[in-house]
């Protein structure tokens, strides 16, 4: 009787865990997408700020902080086992984790430089570096899949 209860509990626990994992993997795709779209919005805002020709430290810092937060969240959305969560991910994300992490580190570093910009030229340089970091990572770790 006790054994049966134990077996059933283990079984139920297994179901809960595996369905939880499946749910998490299923939710990762949309979560990645919305996080990345949020980053895009901030990068666009920064580019618009540079184009406006008027340096605005508060706006730059606000976007840079949002990007840093977004990047830190995005980093957690590619755990081991989530290879099939969405289209557009290169297997290298999971086979070359060191390279993938390095790209994130560069992007985070760039967002700190954006936040620290003191004038338009330094902001432009930092925003360009930031954009280059997005591009460089996507060239390697994102696949053409639409």
């Amino acid at each position: 009787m006790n054994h049966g209860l134990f077996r059933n509990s283990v079984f139920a626990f297994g179901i809960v865990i595996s369905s939880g994992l499946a749910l998490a993997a299923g939710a990762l795709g949309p979560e990645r997408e919305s996080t990345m779209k949020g980053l895009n919005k901030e990068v666009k805002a920064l580019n618009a700020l540079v184009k406006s020709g008027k340096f605005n430290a508060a706006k730059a810092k606000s976007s840079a902080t949002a990007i840093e937060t977004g990047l830190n969240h995005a980093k957690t959305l590619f755990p081991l086992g989530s290879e099939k969560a969405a289209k557009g991910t290169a297997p290298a994300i999971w086979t070359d984790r060191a390279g993938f992490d390095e790209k994130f580190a560069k992007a985070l570093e760039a967002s700190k430089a954006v936040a620290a910009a003191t004038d338009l030229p330094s902001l432009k340089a930092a925003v360009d570096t930031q954009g280059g970091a997005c591009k460089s990572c996507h060239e390697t770790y994102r696949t053409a899949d639409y």
Partner: protein
Amino acid sequence: MIHKAALASPATRRTELRTTDPMVKRPIAIVVGLTAVLVGLALAGGFWLSAPNPVAAASLPAHVADLQNGKTLYTAGGCVSCHRPSPAAIKAGANGELPSGGAPLNTPLGPVFPPNITPDKATGIGGWTQAAFVGAMQRGVSPNGGHYIPAFPYTSYARMKTEDVLDIFAYINSLAPVNSPRHDNAIVLEPVIRRGIGLWKLIAMPAPFAPDSAQSAEWNRGAYLVNGPGHCGECHTPRNALMIGQSAKSLEGGPHPDGKGTVPSLHRLIERKVFTDVDDLTTALQEGEGGGYEHMSSGGMGDAQTNLSHLPEADVKAIATYLSTLR
């Protein structure tokens, strides 16, 4: 009942068979002979039809080279994207800005190594004539009279004005020469396949670009850059079973030529709200993902977008203007 032949000795049987032979053998001989003749004719015809068609120097237009135009079209064509050294070679010290021969392209025929196109006399194209360069770019014919494998997108460059091709040649000749020997491709039966490409070209080569007088000069400039030097269709136009771009589905997207993923359609970009308007599309082409635009780096587009970012703004706007009208 036992057949008579079964009772006869082997020698008798052979004689009997021989006596009936001519009746059977003659039609077979005729069929075999005719087939051999037809196959021979087909091979000879194929050999004749697949012969490379080089450009005669006398047929070239009189032209004073415009280096600036050459640079623009070299950039639009993204020559350096394929012909630059491999990442490993760049890491080892090779100049990544010069087209001294690149990493292999994976084609259905096997890996193809983009050769050194710097003006080095020994290993590049420094010794080439104008006719040789035009022949390569617009007919896919090498100076020694062979067919190039169409991973080299001469199927698009064939649409270009010959004067523009000559300007690219002049610009390439102004670059620093790099001594970088060619890398052999890894294609099975390469000589036979190359000859076969001659037959393929008979149906695959497009007509030169013809401006549409109903459209603006800007639209026509964009259409020319996209379909000629830019060779956008090499990836964005789906191919048929013969690996020829389907003109009816021009720039409609399809499977990625690398074999993985898909290439997006360039039709109805504004209507589908991928971009808000022509200016937005222009900015997207100029800034790519660095400007917060999605889908501008993966599948090789990152390199193409980098090249676009180096084009004069008017040319990028012309491209956006043309693309925005694709339905």
